[in-house]
């Protein structure tokens, strides 16, 4: 028996999987609430409860809160795929396991980028002001770099967790320390080397001082990048090992 169906020479499996992931994410109301509602809530809370001065000073940290939530959504996504048996079903088709993994990461990056833009717009509408020399690219890029580090943390977590509900809950044991120790809700970071601490410092320099200097911004970005690369590599190794064909 041979198939009568025509096949394309170069199927874009990665793109199809990314679209599938995005549809699944957008249709999950809890996901949308966490990704947008949580950071926007803090922006509005600081603006209207503490006044404009505190809001402006805390602004850098508040813009970092959103990308950290990606840890929870990514861990839930991969845990759900494992829970459903979807990864196993997909690997009986011609798609590779690397493509499945990459599709999960890409879709979270796309969501992360959209999230940052929406949060920046909400923050601006709420009255957040920026230094006249603020570099717009860095204003987007620093939170986006934190999204990358969140992918690593999320993947590491997803490797060990079997259900999406436990992944979503346990992720907060990583998210909250990163946010509170990293100084996203307080004046100064309590631990200096966390990616969130580095990002808050860099964001303050960009937003409040209009700086793009290597000492205040560049060096911090290098360290965040190292966190991101290290986390993603470790996450991929662990996840591949835990979902390997045995």
């Amino acid at each position, binding site marked *: 028996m041979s198939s009568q169906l025509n096949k394309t020479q170069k199927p874009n499996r990665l793109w199809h999987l990314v679209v599938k992931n995005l549809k699944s994410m957008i249709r999950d109301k809890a996901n949308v609430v966490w990704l947008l509602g949580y950071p926007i809530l803090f922006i509005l809370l600081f603006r209207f409860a503490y006044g404009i001065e505190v809001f402006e000073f805390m602004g850098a940290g508040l813009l970092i809160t959103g990308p950290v939530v990606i840890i929870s959504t990514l861990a839930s996504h991969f845990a759900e795929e494992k829970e*459903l048996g*979807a990864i196993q079903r997909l690997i009986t088709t011609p798609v590779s396991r690397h493509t499945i993994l990459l599709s999960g990461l890409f879709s979270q990056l796309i969501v992360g980028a959209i999230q940052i833009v929406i949060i920046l717009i909400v923050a601006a509408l709420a009255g957040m002001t920026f230094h006249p020399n603020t570099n717009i690219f860095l204003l987007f890029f620093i939170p986006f770099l934190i999204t990358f580090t969140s992918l690593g943390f999320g993947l590491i977590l997803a490797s060990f967790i079997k259900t999406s509900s436990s992944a979503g809950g346990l992720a907060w044991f990583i998210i909250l320390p990163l946010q509170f120790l990293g100084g996203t809700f307080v004046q100064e970071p309590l631990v200096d080397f966390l990616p969130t601490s580095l990002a808050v410092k860099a964001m303050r320099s960009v937003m409040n001082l209009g700086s793009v200097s290597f000492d205040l911004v560049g060096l911090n970005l290098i360290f965040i990048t190292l966190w991101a690369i290290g986390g993603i590599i470790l996450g991929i190794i662990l996840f591949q090992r835990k979902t390997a*064909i045995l």
Partner: protein
Amino acid sequence: MEYAIETSNLKKYFGDIHAVDGIDLKIPKGYLYGVLGPNGAGKTTTIRMLSTILYPTDGEATVLGFNLIKEASEIRKRIGVCPQELVIYPRLTARENVHLIAQMHGIIKKDYKERTDDLLGRMNLLDRADSLSKTYSGGMKRRLNVLMAVIHEPELIFFDEPTAGLDPQSRRVVWDFIKEFQEKEGTIILTTHNMEEADDLSDELLIIDYGKIIAKGTPSELKRKLGEGDIIEFKISNPEKRDEVIELATTLDFIRWGKSVGKRRILLNALDGLRRISDIMDVVKVEMKDLSVRENTLEDVFIDLTGRRLRN
């Protein structure tokens, strides 16, 4: 004869557990091969190996002429897998779920859209095709699970208990679907606990227990293995006489075997059983209640070969 699947001493161990323990198979192309076995017998593990989800611990296998380990990617282009679990994306619609599998197989959009609508219609899912699949009933989800295994017209399909939990109507829809695929000379591996399904659909059957093949053949060959003749089934009012009744009955030359089921129920395998019930009554001298005479069924064969003990 061309074979869809050939295995030699195929094994899968999980630590000390020998899930599959040396299976030799030759499944001809175009056959519907039923695989029976109690829970935990090794059916699903065998299917998972042959569908490239698990690596064998030992042994050799070719699927559609390709080596199971070295040419897994070639196998994946040609097979369809309907897993025992409902593996569908809950926040995608039925149409999107089916399209996704077609896209993974690289089928062009025009072709997969037409075929998806055709299949959804035949599975009675078309009017809900654009609803999220998490809103479906259990039967609808299972039918969708089946569709996702066949959208790309595979040469070989693995159906792992495709009708588990389905109502009789849905079960028949799935059976018709499987038969239709078979008529197109596709090869099917079907695991099931439904003996009627296995008997009705299978060209050949395989019974596995404790990871080993314990019987194979056509359904009628297997039934003949248990003995020609009929099964006479009855209850006795006094359970203390159960063993005595079996002993007496088996002294008759036309009774091949007798066994008890529970305290009061007795099964006898008899040649020309219907006409000789009165002879049995004369010998056993007990009141026979709920008396019935029927042909051997696959379930009799299954129980005879695998016993009554529950498995994990």
